[in-house]
């Protein structure tokens, strides 16, 4: 009734002071609590005890060498166990060989003059390929031993699944088992596009979030590096996809029908699969 008495000053004013007090206190609490986050990567350094100087790398070890950039070169030369290869081939080889290894260790041997950012790139690549431990080899003033072969590492024709990385409650075996039913049809996705783009190669990172009952919460392609020398037409609305994007879409559709073993109430897991494609 009071509010209807008219505009002659009887309107009661809202007291804002307590509200402002609370808002300011909340603001200060939030300021104190801002989580400062750090991105970090664990690396292993050689200790004093083990002094090794070998000409040949044991076959069960992976040593990635990065050589100093020579004038006129576009990028540093890299080699795996003294075999020279491109970064894409390196990823393929490391992924393939780590899969069958029990201790997934990769050693990185850099020349002293390599730019540090490039070193971290390769450490990152090794982790992406599934390495559990990344170690740095002892620094030699002359750099790593030169590559003893210039032929690039051979790749087989077809699709290759690397070691999955799991965040959350799930074993790598379960993660592998979960994807298995779809592997055949995923490879078919690739072969279909390979008939049109005969040199289509690269890798797809498939990221799957698994719900407690083993069903899929989210299926996503985190990265797709499939490329062909033959120009892949740009994606157009209404037109069917071709090349890399087509493989990606096809793989996503195949992944959607997957079912994992239940991982227990309240748990979720994110699994990332590196999947490599090579025309051989």
């Amino acid at each position, binding site marked *: 009734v009071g509010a209807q008495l008219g505009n002659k000053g009887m309107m009661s004013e809202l007291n804002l002071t307590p509200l402002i007090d609370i808002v300011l206190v909340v603001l200060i609490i939030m300021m104190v609590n801002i989580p400062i986050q750090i991105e970090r990567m664990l690396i292993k350094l050689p200790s004093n005890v083990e002094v090794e100087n070998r000409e040949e790398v044991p076959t069960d070890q992976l040593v990635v060498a990065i050589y100093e950039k020579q004038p006129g070169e576009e990028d540093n030369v890299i080699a795996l166990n003294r075999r020279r290869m491109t970064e894409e081939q390196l990823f393929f080889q490391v992924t393939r060989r780590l899969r069958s290894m029990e201790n997934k260790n990769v050693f990185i041997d850099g020349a002293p003059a390599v730019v540090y950012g490039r070193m971290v*790139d390769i450490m990152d690549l090794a982790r992406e390929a599934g390495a559990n431990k990344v170690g740095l080899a002892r620094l030699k003033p002359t750099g790593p031993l030169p590559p003893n072969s210039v032929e690039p590492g051979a790749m087989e024709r077809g699709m290759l699944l690397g070691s999955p990385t799991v965040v959350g409650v799930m074993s790598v075996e379960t993660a592998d088992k979960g994807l298995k039913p779809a592997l055949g049809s995923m490879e078919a996705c690739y072969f279909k596009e390979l008939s049109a783009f005969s040199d289509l190669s690269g890798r797809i990172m498939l990221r799957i979030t698994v719900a407690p009952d083993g069903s899929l919460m989210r299926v996503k392609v985190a990265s797709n590096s499939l490329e062909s020398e033959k120009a892949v037409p740009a994606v157009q609305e209404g037109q069917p996809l071709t090349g890399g994007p087509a493989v990606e879409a096809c793989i996503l559709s195949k992944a959607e029908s997957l079912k994992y073993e239940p991982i227990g109430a309240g748990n979720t897991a994110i699994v990332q699969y590196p999947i490599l494609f090579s025309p051989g």
Partner: protein
Amino acid sequence: MADINVTPLIDVVLVLLVVFMVITPMLQSGLPVDLPKASQTTTVNDVGQHIVVSVSVSEECKTFPCPKPAQWWVEQERVEFDDSGKAVAGDLLQQINFSFRANPERTVLIKADARLAYHQVREVMDVLAENGMTSIFVSAAKEE
């Protein structure tokens, strides 16, 4: 009708905002350096669990990798250097030991500038490794 006077409120909030913006970059551990990019990193909340060793490039450098000796820092303290500007390994150790004594649970995190040469960063790592710190973390910026 009496309006609420919001001017003081806005004043206070804006001042807080400015203070906040100025302080936030200072809150990160170690020195702000141009970190290398990586995608396979783990994200952790920084609650002082690291002894942060920063390796930064000399300010005079315009081309990279820089021929000038790198500067070493433990937390916010610059490591002592000799006449040629080279950091003294003994002082680095002393400062790290000092940090360890305060909290033995801490691990070493290296924040090194992406533009340094590998041997400049490795020099720090070797001092650490020789003294038993063979598992360390390197810091990177998240690459999506």
